[in-house]
């Protein structure tokens, strides 16, 4: 009732915590996009000819494409010529060879973000690859990983050092002309992460990357490629933040995962891009294509995402289940408030026999935001005995927000089984009263209730990040209640 809405409205007015700008010198391209810009970008990165050719092919394809408008979001048209396609922190030397050589300002930035690289390294267990604006700044834990045979580096380095691997897999999961944003990314991606786990290797630690957009008027187009060879395992986490700016900023990433026979990839995202202010000004446009291919039999790909940031999110981490008995999973928490818009979900494409997929989606809408789940479950003719379970839950906070569910099912195989459950609930006055009657602060109560709602997804996150995600929700919801 009125009281709860008032409380909640205050609550969601909470300010963005990561909204600082880092003062560092950077090399930034003039805004604008043409073949020349792409050639310059490729040259700076000392890329081989095949890479440039691929970029140009994607660019030409992109020119012929239209920006998609089917998502349940509305935003001003992006002027692709007003964006700068490359921004790199200036370095004294060529590249920092170790953490000591990384610009101290930059390291401070990460500290403010709560990810002190030095500490992380000491604490062990988490290897961090940090992408700042467009380039990879520092990759920790290279050595212990190298011992295990795991390659974990920036994609630019991989293009130099492991060209055969990159050439073999890049664009095989998300082709250069897959969609408007993927084509753009293929043309101009500036950096990203590359992971290769050899046959039979269980990656000895969680891998993680933090992305941050810093410079004004820049787009971030990172590209991630993860390859898990037969019977290998890797768990990877990405975190994202951006400073507060009045203009919208574009983030169009592509992530490709390849799992071969009996391999497992667990990919987790904690996305906290700047969502814009409480009047809907500014914020990141997060237009991302993430897809995993379970090529091998018995392979498994799990996507877990906690999406709390961005002004507009357009994101469908998907699985193509080609190998027999392969498994796809999608666990998602998407929280929107103020004027945020999210259209997110997944695609599970069942091609192989006895493939199975699970979708658990938790949408939380507050303020005047709009939160849509869009999911496609598709069974090809060869998907004998395939099955999917989908559970879509929406939680409304206040009564000015919207939640929408768009489930699509396409089946070309009669033996396939789909189960779908959907619920919509509200943080009720009675729940709030119970918590407060027990002495709990209203904002803590909302956060506790929301965390409870998300429990099934949080338990899929790597331990240390589950706590982080819980805190993030708290922050996104805090500041409330008067």
């Amino acid at each position, binding site marked *: *009732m009125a*009281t709860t809405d008032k409380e909640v409205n205050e609550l969601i007015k909470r300010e963005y915590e990561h909204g600082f700008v880092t003062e560092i010198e950077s090399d930034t391209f003039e805004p604008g996009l043409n073949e020349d810009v792409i050639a310059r970008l490729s040259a700076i990165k000392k890329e081989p000819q095949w890479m440039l050719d691929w970029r140009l092919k994607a660019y030409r394809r992109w020119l012929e494409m239209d920006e998609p408008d089917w998502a349940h979001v509305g935003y001003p048209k992006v002027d692709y010529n007003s964006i700068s396609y490359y921004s790199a922190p200036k370095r004294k030397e060529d590249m920092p060879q170790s953490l000591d050589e990384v610009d101290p300002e930059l390291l401070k930035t990460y500290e403010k973000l709560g990810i002190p690289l030095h500490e992380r390294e000491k604490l062990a267990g988490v290897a961090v690859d940090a992408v700042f604006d467009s380039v990879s700044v520092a990759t920790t834990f290279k050595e212990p990983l190298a011992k295990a045979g795991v390659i974990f580096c920036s994609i630019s380095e991989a293009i130099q050092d492991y060209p055969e691997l990159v050439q073999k897999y890049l664009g095989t999961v998300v082709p250069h002309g897959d969609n408007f944003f993927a084509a753009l990314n293929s043309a101009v991606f500036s950096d990203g992460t590359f992971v290769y786990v050899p046959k039979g290797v269980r990656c000895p630690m969680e891998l993680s990357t933090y992305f941050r957009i810093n410079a004004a008027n820049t787009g971030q187009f990172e590209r991630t490629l993860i390859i898990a060879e037969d019977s290998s395992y890797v768990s990877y986490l990405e975190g994202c933040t951006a400073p507060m700016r009045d203009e919208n900023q574009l983030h169009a990433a592509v992530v490709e995962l390849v799992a071969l026979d009996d391999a497992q990839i667990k990919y987790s995202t904690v996305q906290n891009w700047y969502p814009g202010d409480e009047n809907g000004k500014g914020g990141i446009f997060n237009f991302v294509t993430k897809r995993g291919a379970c090529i091998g039999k018995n392979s498994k790909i799990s996507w877990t995402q906690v999406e709390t940031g961005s002004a507009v999110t357009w994101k469908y981490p998907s699985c193509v289940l080609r190998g027999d008995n392969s498994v796809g999973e999608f666990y998602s928490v998407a929280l929107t408030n103020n004027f945020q818009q999210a259209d997110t979900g997944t695609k599970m494409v069942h091609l192989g026999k006895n493939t199975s997929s699970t979708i658990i989606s938790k949408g939380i809408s507050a303020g005047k935001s709009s939160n849509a789940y869009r999911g496609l479950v598709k069974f090809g003719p060869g998907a004998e005995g395939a099955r999917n379970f989908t559970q879509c839950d929406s939680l409304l906070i206040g009564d000015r927000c919207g939640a929408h569910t768009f489930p699509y099912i396409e089946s070309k195989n009669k033996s396939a089984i789909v189960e779908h459950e959907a619920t919509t609930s509200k943080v*009720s*006055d*009675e*729940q709030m*009263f*119970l*918590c*407060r*009657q*027990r*002495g*709990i*602060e*209203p904002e*803590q109560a909302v956060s*506790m*209730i929301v*965390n*409870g*709602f*998300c*429990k*099934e997804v949080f338990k899929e996150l790597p331990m240390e990040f589950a706590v982080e995600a819980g805190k993030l929700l708290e922050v996104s919801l805090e500041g409330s209640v008067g």
Partner: protein
Amino acid sequence: MLSIKNLHASVEGKEILKGINLEIKAGEVHAIMGPNGSGKSTLSQVLAGNEAFEVTEGEVTLNGENLLELETEERAREGIFLAFQYPVEIPGVSNLQFLRTAVNAMRQHKGEGEMNAAEFMKLAKEVSKQVDLDPAFLKRGVNEGFSGGEKKRNEIMQALLLQPKLAILDETDSGLDIDALQVVSNGVNALRAEDRAILMVTHYQRLLNHIVPDYVHVLAGGKIVKSGGRELALELEERGYGWLGIKDEEAANSAN
């Protein structure tokens, strides 16, 4: 301890409490009886600070302090506890987490340090045993899928955990089987203390065999129409409410 003077309260423009006067001293147990819809739960909720109800007149003080000025959570920290007639579920939030958050909120208010998970677990297990609840309930979502009786025992467990100054028990006895009634009564009796008052709403004088009250009040049509000792409950059981000049809510309302 608690002093209620000429309390009027309404919900959605409809007046429910029409001038309640009640004095409760530390150490006392007061029972409130009365027909359905007479305003017993409303009184309980108003004391606890439910904002769905609007206080239009009167005053309430707790140890001399104006209670009506305080937010719900502040009243709770001052020692007001309400055991709900219909406890609500909070899916996914474990009972343990919920209770620990509550206990720590109270402790923080008193300037005490937070209880760590292990300490709290030990304490929670003890009190759950006191109300004969399997400690497994601590791991389950708050009231999630609890039976009616389990919910009531869970409420009393919370009272034992939070050690309030004034415990308001709204029909904590309804829906309990005979054994559970005994368990809950033992729990409530364990709460009885020199420095604590208990206000319990009930329809059954049977409960008062287990928890012997110092005073019994009859609430009808939003007013206390009769007060007495333990024997008043027995008399009510024998004669119903008719002899007090009220039959039901309607009659009570039209009498006003």
